């Protein structure tokens, strides 16, 4: 299951990054809080496939499917 599959109002734990995601982006995502073991909540899933809003600690980020599909969650 990927982060993009997370439904609005639900949460999960980041498991890993897909190898397709470049290493520097993995580092940046980790610095922003999207690192393995971290608890992520999907706070908003706008219609028509728009980027979704995810909460990590006290910060909200918008990620589109090109990134969220490369983050696996458990």
């Amino acid at each position, binding site marked *: 299951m990927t982060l993009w599959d997370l439904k609005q109002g639900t949460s999960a734990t980041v498991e890993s990054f897909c190898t397709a995601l470049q290493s520097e982006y993995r580092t940046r995502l980790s*610095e922003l809080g999207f690192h393995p073991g971290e608890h992520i909540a999907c706070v908003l899933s706008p219609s028509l496939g728009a980027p979704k809003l995810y909460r990590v600690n006290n910060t909200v980020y918008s990620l589109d499917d090109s990134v969220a599909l490369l983050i696996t969650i458990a």
Partner: protein
Amino acid sequence: MPLISKTILIGSPNSGKSLLFNQLTGLNQKVANFPGITVNIKSGKSTVAPELVLMDFPGVYSLHAISGEEKISVDAFYAGLKDPEVSSVVCVVDTTRLEKGLIFALQVINACAKHNKPVMIAANMIDVLNSHGMTMDLEGLAAALKVPVAAISAKSGLGLDHLQELITSHRDSPSPYPSDIDSKGNNIIASDDSIVHRQAQQLAASFGPKGDILINSQTRLDQFFLHSWFGGISFILIMFLLFQSIFTWAAPLMDGVESILQFAAVAVLPLLPAGAISDFVSDALFGGIGAFLVFVPQIFILTLVVGMLEDSGYLARAAVICHKPLRIFGLTGKSFIPMLSSVACAIPGIYAARTVDSPRKRWLTYLAIPLMPCSARLPVYSLLIAAFIPATGAFGGVVGWQGFAMVSIYLFGILCGLLVTALVSRTSAALQTDLPFVLEMPPYRLPSWKPLLRNAWDRSKHFVTKAGKVIFMVTVVIWVLGYFPNQGADLGQSWLGHMGKIIEPAFAPFGLDWKYGVAILTSFLAREVFVGTLGTLFGIEGGEENIISLVEHIQNSGLPIGAGFALLVFFSIALQCVSTLAVLRRETGSWRLPTQLFVSYSIFAYGAAWLTFVTVQSIAG
């Protein structure tokens, strides 16, 4: 200790760093650079300690750069740490999002330790925590980090005196972490990313504010502004206001600039001897330079409104709304505002593209901007549509053909821009770094007007002083070519006129004679010059104002209908605006992109105009 000591202000975007800088320096700033590093760093003297110079470094999320631009900013920070005049570093942290800020702060503390520079934390937005009844353990955090922590509000000014005292008293004091090792030999500040993250998490949990009030209120507003219906309606309303600000609110100011220039011309011209000097001042200075100065109010107002949207947090939401449709064309949601601004004028649009953080997406946005139907095209479209499209309508006159033609040519320009970016994004190699769409949703806030006004002023000044030089040079060249050798008596007999006749065969394939060739050449200065030049060539004084007479002359000149359509298509594509080219050169740092765009869009415009001429003529018989 050197007489002048410098303090670096560093922080993540949206941490309130620049607002703090403005408060500490009282807006008395200048732009500086470290040798060999081309990044704008604002510097200003402290209002309480004149020997102290504060330096506002560009906001970065991390000291691990993932794009060329970030690397430049990070390199500038490291160069600053090596500067002997730099006596301390202040890292600004947003206390409402403490963990994220602490990850960056720990990186900064680590870097400062390696360079033996004292560092302190400015815990910003403490007023927001207070207003929600939340607190944090600042002393505990300072003790854990072993660096001073000052609670501040850059917006209200709360705690700034204490921060200034800390800066003054701690400068040049030894770093608490020589060689990363504390007095007991433990590695306090880890450089490993995962450990840094865990430390930040523990510190935020131990000393940070507790509760979800802030994030919950932000989410409620997001549910409205990103709602399928309400979000769409509010987006349209806000964009309508933005568009109004560019066109309607800027109009009186633009008229004001024009009046001042006219007044100055009336005052100055009689003092000059009649002849070339007087004509130069009248046509090249007041006419040519004045034509670009009238855009200054538009740039000022647009920068102000876009800055307000950015400060309020709405710009990030607009980017989310627009991202999906624009991604089809290789762009990002952040490209929307620059493109919308360009419908008024490409120049503020190019400046607004600074908000696009991905270098590749910004580059693609630059490709689309010159094709947006800017206001300078409007007089040309109005003239050609009035000359070639009948003033009748369909459905009992409900839909006028002239209005339909105007909407069509506007949409044609937008479509061309999107198709170009779609094509280039799919076929060109990625020379620039492309960042994934990961956008921090800043909290909703009331904007701070002072820095917004300052930024709008700086941007306007930048346009006048930097782009103005190039515009002035080109204006002089065009004026000389149009004035000599017959002292402006007859544009047709000038060097420019001769050039028009030489290039006449180039425009003949779409039915244009030398007069239109000259008008196209002069419209390189600004597209609307086309109308004035045609007026001059047809012997009409004030071609812009006397448009009906000019329309009749064009209709009676025997120009085929296909040529009129071809001109419309040509002007919707060709990059004939020296101001746009000059600003693009300033923003990209070289002539490469402006030259590429000018040449490729000229060829594209020529080919499309020829195709239009052939098609329309074959239909018209």
